């Protein structure tokens, strides 16, 4: 059975490219465009992994990540943070909050796919 991936970003063009990329790799994909929607989709779609943008309206990626980690039901959910702000403090903050991996925009599609696969244990 295919792994489920939730893509969360407020930039439509980035969502389009990520969605296409992940579907091509054979994952089942859902999309959310802000923090609140992301939390709702986690509950309804039950993804295995989440690609989470940091700078978003309503709830930032950090807030979403914190909310998810506060709930023990989501312990198995893997979170990859995506940010266009490349500062070290952002990376450190994301990992401290409970993200499993961190990618800086713009990212290499190969690297992102490799990272997602290794995290899900598919090779």
């Amino acid at each position: 059975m295919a792994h489920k991936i939730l893509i969360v970003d407020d930039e439509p063009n980035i969502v389009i490219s990520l969605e296409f990329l992940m579907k091509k790799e054979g994952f089942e994909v859902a999309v959310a465009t802000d923090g609140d929607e992301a939390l709702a989709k986690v509950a309804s779609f039950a993804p295995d992994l989440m690609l989470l943008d940091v700078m978003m309206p309503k709830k930032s990626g950090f807030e979403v990540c914190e909310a998810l980690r506060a709930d023990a039901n989501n312990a198995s959910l893997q979170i990859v943070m995506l940010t266009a702000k490349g500062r070290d403090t952002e990376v450190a903050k994301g990992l401290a909050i409970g993200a499993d991996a961190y990618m800086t925009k713009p990212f290499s599609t190969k690297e992102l796919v490799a990272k997602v696969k290794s995290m899900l244990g598919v090779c």
Partner: protein
Amino acid sequence: MLSGWFILLLSTVYMAILFAVARFGDARADAGKSIISANVYALSLAVYCTSWTFYGSVGRATSGGLSFLTIYIGPTLMLLMTGVILKMIRISKVHRITSIADFIASRYGKSQLLAGLVTIIAVIGVVPYIALQLKAISASLDVLLLDSDAGFLPWWLDSTFLIAGLLAVFTILFGTRHLDATERHEGMVAAVAFESVVKLLAFLAVGLFVTYGMFGGLSDLFQRAAASPELGRLLQLDSSRAGTWTAMILLSGLAIIFLPRQFQIIVVENVNESHLKRAVWLFPLYLLLINIFVLPLAIGGLLHFQGQPFNADTFVLTLPLSRGAEGLALLVFIGGLSAATGMVIVETIALSTMVCNDLVMPWLLRSSRIGASKDLSRLLIGIRRAAITLILLLGYIYFRAAGEAYALVGIGLISFAAVAQFAPAMFGGMYWKQGTRAGAVAGLLGGFAVWLYTLLLPSFARSGWIGNSFVEQGLFGIAGLKAQALFGMSGLDEISHSLWWSLLVNLGLYIIVSLNSRPDAVEAGQAERFVDVFRHSTQETDTRIWRGRASMDELVNLLERFLGPARAQQQLSIFANERGTTNWRNLPADADLVHFAEAQLAGAIGSASARVMVSSVAQEEEIGLEEVLDILDEATQVRAYSRELEAKSQELEEATTELRAVNERLRELDKMKDDFISTVTHELRTPLTSIRALSEMLHEDPRMELNDRKRFLGIIVSETERLTRLINQILDMAKLESGRAEWTTSEVDVRDVVRESMDSLGQLFREKGVALSGELPETCPLVMADRDRLTQVMINLLSNAVKFVAGETGKVHVRLSADDERVRIEVSDNGPGLTADECTVIFEKFRQGGNTMTDKPQGTGLGLPISRQIVEYFGGNLWVESEPGAGANFIFTVPLPGPEEQQ
């Protein structure tokens, strides 16, 4: 029935206890464990309360009512001036002052003349007071022995003489027990404090006995007094005597510090300046307690002895005796004895020190009768013992001679008025550097003469010793010179009259003569050190003012002669230790040592004699007045420098604070710049992310479906455009902010700008189905501006509007108007509107309004900030008026050129 022998025995036992207390105090002082605490010090001040208080207050209250209180209000007020007394104590410690005569003499250039003068005034003024104490003891004995065998003593020996003799012996034992004649006597202070407790307890005991034992308490007494017209007067404050009250308060306030015994106790015997703080409230409390029963006793006595002959001064004895309470009467007698002996012992010691140091020593030193003698400390003790005996003998003679001439209170006030003469020279010396020796001598002599003429001699005349014509008719029959109505000033009581004239003459002469005389070098130096004692507390200044040569042997010899060999060497060792040497023989005979030797001698023989002795063994160079003033001035300059330094460091501190604030602002700016760069980075990376991801996928998958391929390439193109636009706007913004933007200013018709902008965006509006309407006036004044920049603003506002209104139903309206000062352009829409917060936020960089996902790539978040920069550059304003749900109205103004610019 009380036997004379029994009373004598009791008195002797009491004196022996006193002596034991003193021995204990001395032993503890020798062991370095002083028993002089703040409480002991405060209690010892109560030596102020003599037998005059003990017996006389009641007597005074029977005639003057509440006015007896003045004698206690004055000291209370004086003690409140803690600063003055503290300064006196500090000066005395620094200069090792031994008496009030020494104090005044030292201030005015260590003058032997002044020291002698003050001593003579003190002795003449105070001997009657000592006589008064003897009289009190004698009177109290008479009352106790009224009915017993008055002739228990042989005819040649009367009881008062016996008591005077006993007092002399005890005073000698108390005050001159030590072979070294230094200025402090801790044992004596302890004994005096003990006596203060005894007399207070005795007085309270008789007060309680009379008030509650013989009468029905305080209210009963006062009610009875109020019922009788004669006694009721005692309870009233008599306003016609206000002048007397003022004079009495002043007089007693001065007496509390200038009576030789008070100066001795408060200043010389003070071991710790902080003790004064306790005394300031404890001593007034003591006075209050000892006065509580004065009025009840006076009223009780007057009620009890109504219609019989009585002596109000002995009510405290006769009242208990009338009820047969002999034990209480004996306690009261001991209390009175305490009051009298305490006063006599301290007063006599203080006077004998003054007589020895300031009268006898100068005479001996001048007549060089003591040249050969090796150890003079025994001689010093001998002189003091002789002086004690002599003073008491004088007191006894005065007592015998004066007899019943005067009531007790009269003599006490005469003494007070005599020592009040020290006030101008003392206070002036402490606070006025211009006061000179000549001024002090003139003031003291003048004041003393007036006191003698208006107070002491009239009291002699009243005793019948001299004719009283100078009182009745005036000297040489001149009415203006009547001793108690000088220059026609009558209507005052004799004490107020004498105090007024003597202090006026004293103060006047002191000031006038001081202003017209010049001090010599020693005097100017002392004046500086007294007045500024808190600055010159180190010895540095002292040693710099001395220049000359001295021999170690001669100085040591001098010390050994006056202090005794043992004490001299002990003091030298202490001094050597302070200077870091173990053996004093290795000390250099420099200015420090000379100064030390002089201070030690001053403690033993007074500052004036010490000065004479030291200058006799050291070859001193004369230092001129100018030079002394220069040296002292240097000290002043050093102080000025340190003040300057203080000010500098204050400035530095301020500068540091300012720097810190600037630094803080810089850090904020730095953080803002950081945030800005971080935001710009984010804005640049976002389109790059899509471009890179999509290009990589196209690149890797050549067989991608044509539809996807087209769609992706479309996105890549639009994202590249967005990126370009963003970079252009950032550069534009940077130019505007740094002021490097290029401006082509010319006359512009704003209507053209509006029309062109509307035309160029017409297509965009039609595509979205948004209605665009304009409202332009017939004519419009020209403005000075950059046409292209204004168009940029206009297009920005219009494209914002079309972006946020709904398709098909959206409406955007442009309105142009002008008045005398400016052109105003409004762009209003019927979009979602803005909250009050958003109305400010949207003008910040990279902050976009709404959450419109659809059009997001169109905005950079820099349009409005750039537009505002442009409008403000032309001197106008750009703002928005909006409410949520009510559409938004963006308005900007461009000012018209001023009249002069138009021409």
